[in-house]
């Protein structure tokens, strides 16, 4: 149960300066605000993958059929053009980036901040200094079943043990909640950092991985339990768990600011975000961090990193809510930005997202 529901009336709302009068809050605010310059876009680099997973976002919709541009100079030109229009952070997304190392190199040369989503089966060269998000969907038995990949976790750990670039991203489905305990133990034993994602159904998906209220509740409890057990290795906060396992999805809770759900082009993601396909084209009407996700079911960690962070205004209603937001942003930066180190969380209580009852 949440300890409070924090929609403050205007008269009861503290001044922002009062919140910052707490030294721990002020220090965290100053730490995270240094990264407000980050402006992201995402890029599919290859339409190939070396494994095939049930419920994969990439192989939904039209984007998988785009022509693959493998010319490194075309990518260099794109990166330079992106920098010129103000993009400071690249998310290299689908299908499997480890298959195109030359493109990764050129992106890193032109745009030094970014991250790569990878299944971790093939090691990405150490010269590519981006954060690497290694996707984990359960133990090896489950991976074999839904990803058709043998000994995947073992291989992922071999490739990225002690690698400061790597963050293992465990995606909770309805079926793999209990497996996370053994997987986390194995990752921690090899000094691997991890964070959590929640399976968000692609449009039209009606398979057994989709969450229900019961599985979301169990997922939340499990996440918080592991966060308490392994605070040095689990990059997460209680508020992350709340935001991503709520019965309402991220769009309902926070109003998604990606172009697909946001017609405004005045400022923020609605103005600057693009989702490039492998042919280096993009389409505003479908642009978001994980295209072809069913927005009602979206609890994706990448979406939250932008959507929750953007809602600063809603989280200054009281001290615990602001602390929770700071924990969330501190987590997001530790997961996505090379060299950024997460601090201890400021709030350990379950705080209901602002306006959750009315959204």
């Amino acid at each position, binding site marked *: 149960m949440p300890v409070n529901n924090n929609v403050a009336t*205007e008269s009861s709302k503290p*001044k*922002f*300066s009062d919140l910052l009068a707490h030294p721990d809050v002020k220090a965290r605010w100053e730490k995270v*605000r240094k990264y*407000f*310059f980050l*402006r992201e876009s995402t890029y599919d680099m290859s339409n190939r993958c070396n494994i095939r997973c049930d419920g994969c976002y990439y192989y939904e919709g039209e984007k998988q059929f785009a022509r693959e541009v493998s010319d490194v100079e075309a990518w260099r030109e794109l990166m330079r053009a992106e920098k010129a229009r*103000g993009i400071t952070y690249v998310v290299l997304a689908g299908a499997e980036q480890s298959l195109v190392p030359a493109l990764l190199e050129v992106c890193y040369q032109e745009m030094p901040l970014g991250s790569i989503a990878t299944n971790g089966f093939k090691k990405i060269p150490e010269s590519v200094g981006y954060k690497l998000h290694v996707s984990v969907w359960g133990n090896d038995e489950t991976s074999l079943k839904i990803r058709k990949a043998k000994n995947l976790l073992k291989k992922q750990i071999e490739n990225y043990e002690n690698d400061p670039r790597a963050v293992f991203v465990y995606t909770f489905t309805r079926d793999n909640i209990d497996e996370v305990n053994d997987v986390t133990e194995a990752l921690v034993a090899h000094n691997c950092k991890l964070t959590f994602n929640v399976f968000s159904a692609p449009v039209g998906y009606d398979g057994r991985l989709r969450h229900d209220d019961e599985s979301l509740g169990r997922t939340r409890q499990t996440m918080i339990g592991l966060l308490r057990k392994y605070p040095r290795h689990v990059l997460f906060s209680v508020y992350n768990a709340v935001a991503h396992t709520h019965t309402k999805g991220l769009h309902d809770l926070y109003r998604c*600011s990606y172009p697909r759900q946001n017609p*405004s082009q*005045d*400022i*923020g*993601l609605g*103005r*600057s975000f693009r989702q490039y396909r492998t042919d280096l084209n993009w389409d505003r009407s479908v642009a978001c961090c994980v295209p072809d996700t069913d927005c009602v079911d979206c609890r994706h960690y990448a979406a939250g990193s932008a959507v929750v*962070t*953007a*809602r*600063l*205004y*809603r989280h*200054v209603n009281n001290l615990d809510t602001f602390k929770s937001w700071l924990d969330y942003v501190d987590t997001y930066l530790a997961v996505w930005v090379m060299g950024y180190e997460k601090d201890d969380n400021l709030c350990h209580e379950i705080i209901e997202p602002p306006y959750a009852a009315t959204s």
Partner: protein
Amino acid sequence: MPASYDIKGIIRRVAEIIIDELKLEDVTADTFSPDMDLVDELGIDSMDLATIALVLQDEYRITIDEDDYPTLKTIRLISEYIKEKLPVRH
């Protein structure tokens, strides 16, 4: 308390707050054009604007709704918005 509630005074104070919050070094409250487009010309983004809005809320004890952020594109527009929200003074 803010130094002045007249529009010129508000414009100056808003400029000072933006300079302070964004740590701008090559502009002063005297040289900051109130009509410069903060997004297009200065390159500020939504998180910067949200921060500035929170500081201005404190300063003038008004509420700036997040839905209004996109309309606050220049110092003059911000100042006029603040002036409208302030209680009428006799």
